[in-house]
């Protein structure tokens, strides 16, 4: 089976996505100081997700099956959440940056990692698959 660089491409995109989550988490912290205690929970969750993103990215480069499955699940959730947000009449941002980050990025990650051939390259998640 010839090598593919799709996992490496996905690693780059995951690294970017993790940074966006990290910045979102950090951006909530001033509001915690301003008297919004629950924002700390969201900040922590965002940072944890950022860490999971990087960890999964490393797993992808090492061709771990769990990493591929984790990323696909997270990205499908992100995509569904974004589509729901865009469908609801709540005035969600529809600018090019928002569409790139919240729609194109998860969709690109799903496209890069989906399919039978990619599943075969990642194996079942054990170290032997690498």
């Amino acid at each position, binding site marked *: 089976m010839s*090598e*593919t*660089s*799709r996992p*490496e*491409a996905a*690693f*780059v*995109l995951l*690294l*970017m996505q*993790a*940074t*966006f*989550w*990290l*910045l*979102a*988490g950090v*951006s*909530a912290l001033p*509001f915690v100081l*301003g*008297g*919004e*205690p*629950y*924002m700390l*929970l*969201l*900040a922590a*969750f*965002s940072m944890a*997700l950022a860490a999971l993103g*990087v960890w999964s*990215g*490393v797993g992808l*480069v090492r061709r771990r099956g769990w990493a591929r499955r984790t990323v696909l699940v997270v990205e499908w959730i992100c995509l569904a959440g974004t589509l729901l*947000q865009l469908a609801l*009449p*709540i*005035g*969600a*941002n529809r*600018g*090019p*940056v*928002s569409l*790139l*980050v*919240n729609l194109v990025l998860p969709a690109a990650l799903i496209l890069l990692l989906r399919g039978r051939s990619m599943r075969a390259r990642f194996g079942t998640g054990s170290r032997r698959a690498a």
Partner: protein
Amino acid sequence: MYDIAPDHAIGLLAGLIAAPLAILAVRLSRMHRALPGTVQIACVLMAVTAVIHLALIPHHLGEDPITAVLFLGNGIAFLALAAAPRWRWWRLASSAMLVATILGYLFYVDFRVEGPDQVGLATKLVEFAALGMVLVPVRDERPMRDRSWYWALLATGLPLLLLVSGSGVWVEALAHPDTRHVHAGALLQSTNSVPSAEQQAAATQLYEQTAAAIAPYEDWHVAWAAGYRPAGSVDMPSTHWFNKAYEKGPVMDPRHPQGLVYANTHHGPVLLGAMFQMPRIGQFGPDPGGPLTAWHQHENICFSIVGLEFSLMTPYATCPVGAIDLTAPAMLHVWIVDNPTGGPFAVDIDPKVVAALDRT
């Protein structure tokens, strides 16, 4: 920051047209097809950013020829790099060019040569992705770059550059909002600039009627009995209280304001003023006082159902995980306490006023 500068719209259009053409060109090129997918993606992304830069030249040519020349150089260089991925120094040249372009934009924004907008930020995202694709090592590559230190450098360098750029753009946007964005996320209604005598009189009348109508709510128990409820944390200096019964109207009725604003003082809630709100997003209300009573609409706010709390969306259009991005319908405040910095209809109450009430 969340708008598309009208002069930049052409760049966005050009980028959208260029993307499928660049993909097609790379797929048809035998030389490109033989290269790793990451390199192919980088070539597509560099071609897109090249076209965006080239499309923006005519606009800049008249008013800023230096930028136009830089864009020309950028466009030609990126197109050349996209076309010649087999060049020996391709990775070095591409990454240097991409980093220089990203930092150049940050310089332009932070030194206020240009305001941040969606086209600029989207182009930077394309360039960040291209940079990552250029630098990421792939398997079976010669010469081999798959070293731990290289991966560590990539995994810290790219996010760091993203964070620095995002923060730099954000700080600038918050520190120097344009005239209609009075503070981050609040878009002011367009009005005439100087109020006429009639507008002045109408604003005074609105103020007096509202102040008289909400006077009973100085006792928050009365407000509670009338159906007003806190719509957020009461640990903040002030909290908006909303009345669901008035959500759909009437519009700007001093006797039935949609909201009340209370300062959260150590001796209980102290009434600061009223808030009128439109029933729908994207609709400003009647503006009898012209510039004195301009409505404002909070856009790109991150709302968390947990605790009913708010934060602001980042320049990369993300909210903390669990919060949703929304826009609040347009609103107009009427402050019945003295608000020296902005007056009785200002978007915000002066924090010093709230702090002073807490001290009394």
